[in-house]
C-alpha cells in the first residue's frame, strides 16, 4: 500500500511544481524555492514527518523534503542546546546532501567542462 501512496503523494508534489511552471509562469528557480519553503513550513507545523511515515519516498525524495530537513535539524538542536542550536542545526540533517553536491560537482568539474 505504501507504494501506491508514495506514487500519489510524490506525484502530487510534482504536479504542484508543474502548475507553478505552466499556469503561474514561475521560473525553475522560483518553483524550487517555493517547494523548499512549503516543506519547511509543513515541518514547522509538525506535518511533514507524518507525511513521510505515510508516503515514504513519495515525501522524502521531492525537494520539499529538503525544506523539511532544514527546519527539522534547527528545531532539534534548539531543544538540545537552546537558541544557538537554530544556527548550528539548520545544516545538521542536510549536511550529507550539501556535502555530496559540492564533492560530486567538484569531481564532475575535473572531468568535463561546462559550455552551456
Amino acid at each position, binding site marked *: 500500500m505504501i507504494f501506491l501512496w508514495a506514487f500519489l503523494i510524490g506525484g502530487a508534489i510534482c504536479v504542484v511544481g508543474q502548475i507553478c*511552471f*505552466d499556469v503561474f*509562469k514561475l521560473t*525553475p528557480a522560483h518553483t524550487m524555492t517555493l517547494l523548499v519553503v512549503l516543506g519547511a513550513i509543513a515541518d514547522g507545523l509538525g506535518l511533514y514527518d507524518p507525511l513521510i511515515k505515510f508516503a515514504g519516498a513519495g515525501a522524502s525524495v521531492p525537494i520539499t523534503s529538503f525544506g523539511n530537513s532544514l527546519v527539522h535539524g534547527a528545531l532539534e538542536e534548539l531543544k538540545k542546546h537552546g537558541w544557538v542550536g537554530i544556527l548550528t542545526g539548520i545544516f545538521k540533517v542536510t549536511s550529507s546532501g550539501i556535502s555530496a553536491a559540492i564533492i560530486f560537482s567538484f569531481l564532475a568539474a575535473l572531468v568535463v567542462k*561546462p*559550455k*552551456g
Partner: protein
Amino acid sequence: MLKGHQSWVFENRPSIIGRATVVGPFEGQGPLAEDFDIIHGDLRLGQDSWEKAEKALLEEAAKLAIENAGLTQEQINFFVGGDLMNQIISTSFAARTLMIPYIGIFGACSTSMESLAVAANLVDSRSAKFALSSACSHNATAEKQFRYPTEYGSQKPPTAQFTVTGAGASVVAQEGQGPRVTSATIGRVIDMGISDPFNMGAAMAPAAVDTIQAHFRDFQIEPGHYDLIVTGDLSKVGYEIACDLFDKHKVPMHQTEYKDCGMMIYDYGKQKVQAGASGCGCSAVVTYGHLLNRMRNREFNRILVVATGALLSPISYQQGESIPCIAHAVSIESEAVKS
C-alpha cells in the same frame, strides 16, 4: 528614395550577386538541407566556445558569399550585419577578420532584412559599389544568453522556439546577375505587453502585421502583388495570431501565399522544436538559401520577406519588462521581372 511614410524604393534595382548559407547539424537534418551551402556536423565547428563557433559560421558565410559573387574582400565597400549576442560580438569579431569597413546593426531577429535593406540602400544611392549584408545566430549561445544554460535541463513550454544555428550573407551590387532588391519598409517598434520570453512568436506577430500593412499602404499595392510573403520567425503560435490579425484588419492575404520561415526549416514530426524556429539565422538562411533558390528556379517572381525581431535583453526580461518587437520588410524580385 523615400516612398510613402516609412519605405524605400530602390529605383536602380540593386542585385544580389552572391549569397551563402552555413548551418549546423540540426538544420542539416531538416527539410531544407539541400538549399544550404555548408552543413556542419559539429555544433561547435571545432572551436573551443559556442561564441567562437557562431563567429566562425558567419566568417564562412561571408567569405563564401563574396567568392560566389566573384569578388575579393578588398572590393567590398561596406559590411552591414548583426546578431543576437550582447554587443553583437559575433558580427563585430567576424568583421575583425574580414577587414571590410563595417556598420554593425542590431534588430534582434529582424537583422537579416534590416541589414539587406541598409545594404541595398547604400548601393542604390551609389554610396557603395558592393555591400555585404549578413545575420547569424547559434542555438547554444542564444540559449545561454536568453534562457537557461543547456546543462541545467530546464523544461520548455510548447510556445517556446528553437534558435537556428546558421549564418546567411549576401553581396549586393549596382549591377550583375541575380535577384533584385526592389524596396524595403522599415518597421515601428510595437509592444503589446507580452513579457514571456518563451512566447516570442505571439509578441512579434503584431509588429509583422503592422509592417506588412505599412508596406501595402506606402506602395499602394495589395498582397496579390507578391507570389509569396514570408515572415521571419513567428512560428506556429505567432503565425496563427498574425493570420487572425490580417483577418481582423481585412488584409486580403488570400491573394498570395503566406508562410513563416520559422515553420519551414525544421520537420515538426521528427525534430522537437516546440513552436518552431527563431533567431537571426532563421530568416537569413531560409531566404538566402531556400527562397532565392526557388526564385532562381522560376517558382516565384516577387517575394516579400518580413523579418521579425524581439528587442528584449536578458536584463529587461529579468526586471519583468514587456518585449518590444519590430519587423522589417524587403521585397526581392527575380531579374526577369521588368520594373
